[in-house]
């Protein structure tokens, strides 16, 4: 009986004196990680196969004749593992000395410095001085094409990059060439990895500074970067990413693990589209246009005046939204439009001609919809117009004579006469294009990178993002601006946080009901399927 009392699938072992129970089949390295003990490793990566070749993760297992590679050794009941024993530590120190034998020690000019596993491990457990007297062999650097640069001398031969290209990208263009201490990662002569749509990930998983991004080369030091969790805004997949920020500028994007959405990866298309978040041409303060005279204003003055205009009575409303706006922003727009008597809301969305799946994890795919929140707009009853460039479709609205509200869409393809026939033209957005600047009320909004909020991805997963940049001037989240207006019109409460704005969104859309910022958490939550009405 006693034997059966435990579920057969779990195993209890002791690691460095602490007991841990994990599912059968777990490796020692993973079990240790569950205890917060990160055993040094190079070749193991949770998203790839484990060849057990770097010999850095060796640990002592009581009863075993020699040290065991923890990355592939499965746990056993009653196992006693020592990761910090004298033997294990001595071994790691020895292995690290080999890793440094040919390493150029060029940390001062290496982009990986500060987030380098060789640096970290040697600092923790390496010898103070190397004993090698041989001259180091020198490879120099190689351009792998695309965004990728290879510094051969820094490589620790973990083959993570080779395995990523074989197993995940399934585009086996990398290999180990030559042997012994002449081994080097290379492609088929000049072939390179150019055009492989997920190749940027090899830079992320390279534990050292061997593979680096040309875009990021010598741009910032790792320790100067703030890592701000967010969602990639470049397609409807919604990869979980971090903005790496210095001096209030996004310096690069890095994937953040989410096993359901993007595992550990992101696509190159998304990775390299961040410059727009750093744009300097911003609407920085509210502007009220009175008969062609733009008058900069402040929030209370502008909103007061706008409210006055709305009180005078409004003509029928039509609105333009943006699929780059958060659920909260879009819901606040819907709210305001409804408060003004209801009306059609359209959005424009650039669309690629094909998806680009990651073959090793096809659930991750650069989707056709090249914006993060088309699904959110759809849920809130908005309608897509325009072409696959995200342009056109607004000809009629350009000469609309009622009340016109625009949220987020830059209107870059439209002339300055856009909305000039409207009885009232309100623009809430970030960039002062000619068509936007002529609005009666030009209200500065933050971009997604400067605010907290949620996007709904292609599969209906609501995912949170957090502010990474400081907003310029008086820019405020659109949910706050529109929410304040709607509240004035209807007498409801003004949301004081993104979480509250989401609650208001959930009141508008049954799909969001029951979800809260808490339940969405850092992993996201799937929306409720709309309930099909019987007979409908």
């Amino acid at each position, binding site marked *: 009986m006693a034997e059966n009392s435990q579920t057969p699938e779990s195993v209890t072992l002791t690691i460095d004196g602490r007991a841990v129970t994990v599912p059968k089949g777990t490796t020692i390295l993973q079990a240790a990680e569950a205890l917060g003990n990160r055993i040094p490793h190079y070749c193991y990566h949770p998203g790839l196969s484990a060849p057990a070749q770097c010999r850095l993760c060796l640990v002592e297992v009581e009863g075993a004749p020699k040290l065991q590679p923890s990355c592939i050794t499965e746990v056993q009941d009653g196992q006693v593992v020592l990761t910090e024993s004298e033997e294990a530590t001595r071994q790691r120190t020895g292995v690290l000395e080999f890793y440094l034998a040919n390493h150029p020690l060029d940390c001062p000019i290496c982009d990986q410095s500060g987030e380098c596993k060789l640096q970290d491990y040697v600092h923790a457990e390496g010898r103070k001085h190397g004993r090698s007297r041989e001259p180091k062999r020198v490879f120099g650097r190689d351009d792998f094409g695309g965004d990728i640069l290879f510094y051969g001398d820094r490589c620790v031969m973990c083959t993570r990059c080779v395995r990523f290209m074989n197993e995940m990208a399934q585009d086996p263009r990398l*290999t180990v*060439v030559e042997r012994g201490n002449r081994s080097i990662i290379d492609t*088929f002569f000049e072939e390179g990895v150019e055009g492989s749509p997920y190749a940027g990930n090899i830079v992320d998983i390279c534990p050292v500074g061997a593979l680096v991004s040309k875009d990021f080369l010598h741009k910032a030091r790792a320790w100067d970067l703030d890592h701000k969790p967010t969602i990639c805004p470049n397609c409807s997949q919604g990869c979980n990413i971090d903005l790496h920020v210095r001096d209030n500028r996004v310096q690069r994007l890095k994937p953040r693990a989410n096993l359901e959405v993007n595992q550990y990866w992101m696509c190159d298309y998304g990775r390299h589209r961040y410059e727009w978040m750093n744009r300097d041409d911003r609407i920085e303060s509210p502007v009220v246009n009175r008969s062609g005279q733009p008058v900069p204003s402040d929030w209370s003055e502008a909103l007061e005046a706008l409210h006055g205009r709305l009180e005078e009575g409004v003509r029928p409303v039509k609105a333009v939204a943006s699929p780059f706006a958060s659920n909260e922003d879009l819901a606040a727009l819907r709210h305001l439009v409804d408060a003004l008597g209801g009306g059609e809301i359209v959005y424009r969305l650039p669309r690629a001609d094909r998806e680009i799946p990651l073959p090793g994890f096809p659930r991750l795919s650069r989707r056709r919809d090249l914006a993060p929140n088309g699904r959110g707009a759809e849920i809130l009853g908005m309608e897509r117009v325009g072409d696959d460039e995200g342009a056109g479709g607004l000809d009629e609205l350009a000469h609309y004579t009622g009340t016109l509200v625009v949220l987020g869409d830059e209107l870059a393809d439209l002339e300055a006469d856009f909305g000039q026939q409207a009885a009232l033209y309100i623009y809430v957005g970030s960039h002062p294009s000619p068509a936007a600047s002529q609005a009666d009320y030009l209200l500065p909004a933050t971009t997604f990178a400067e605010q907290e909020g949620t996007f709904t991805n292609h599969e209906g997963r609501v995912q949170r993002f957090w502010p990474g940049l400081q907003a310029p001037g008086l820019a405020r989240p659109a949910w706050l601006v529109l929410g304040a207006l709607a509240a004035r019109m209807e007498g409801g409460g003004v949301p004081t946080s993104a979480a509250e704005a989401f609650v208001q969104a959930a009141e508008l859309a049954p799909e969001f009901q029951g979800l809260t910022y808490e339940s969405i958490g850092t992993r996201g939550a799937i929306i409720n399927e709309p309930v099909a009405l019987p007979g409908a």
Partner: protein
Amino acid sequence: MSDETTERAPFRNPGWAGNTGEFELSEDEVRGRSYVGEHAPEGGHPSRVPTVPYMLPEKDPEAPLFEGPYAERFEKILSRYPNRRAALLPTLNLAQELRGRVSPETMAEVAQLLGLSDAYVRGVATFYTMYNKRPVGRYLIQVCTNVSCNLCGGDEVLAAFLEHTGTEAGEISDDGLFTVMEVECLAACGFPTAVQINSRYFENVTPDDVPAVLDRLREEAS
């Protein structure tokens, strides 16, 4: 004819059991004319087809992969393995036998034949030193300088070959006949210094033997 050959081999080669006087056998009779016996381009019985890397004096860098008897041999090689990837090493051998080396183009062609990526084939071909990544002369002279041979003067034998061919290791001599290189143990440690020239072994070679060996090869080539 066998007598003739014996006479034409004036270098001291006691490692060759044929001239110990114990048996009435000529060197030809013991070793066969090319010292590895005749070999058929189609490879003989499938069981030995993948195992023997031949090196022929006639090299045609443009030779097709594979035609005629060589196509037959390639089929036999494939029949020996569970999948095409496993047949990579003998296929590279076969390509090298025909073309004398494994050039980038050859790697790509072999990759195509076996359904592998070009990069993978390059990785394998560069791992093994017996694939010539650069062109070699008609005779590839591989001098062992590993332990036994080294103790018995392998370095001097190597130096003699370099001197008498007027090359640096790995180069092709001006007449296109010779490429000399240093190799690890040839598994003929009982007869140091061991030298492999194309597919045949020359054993107990001393620096003094070198001019005669080279002359003999020149004569063969003419």
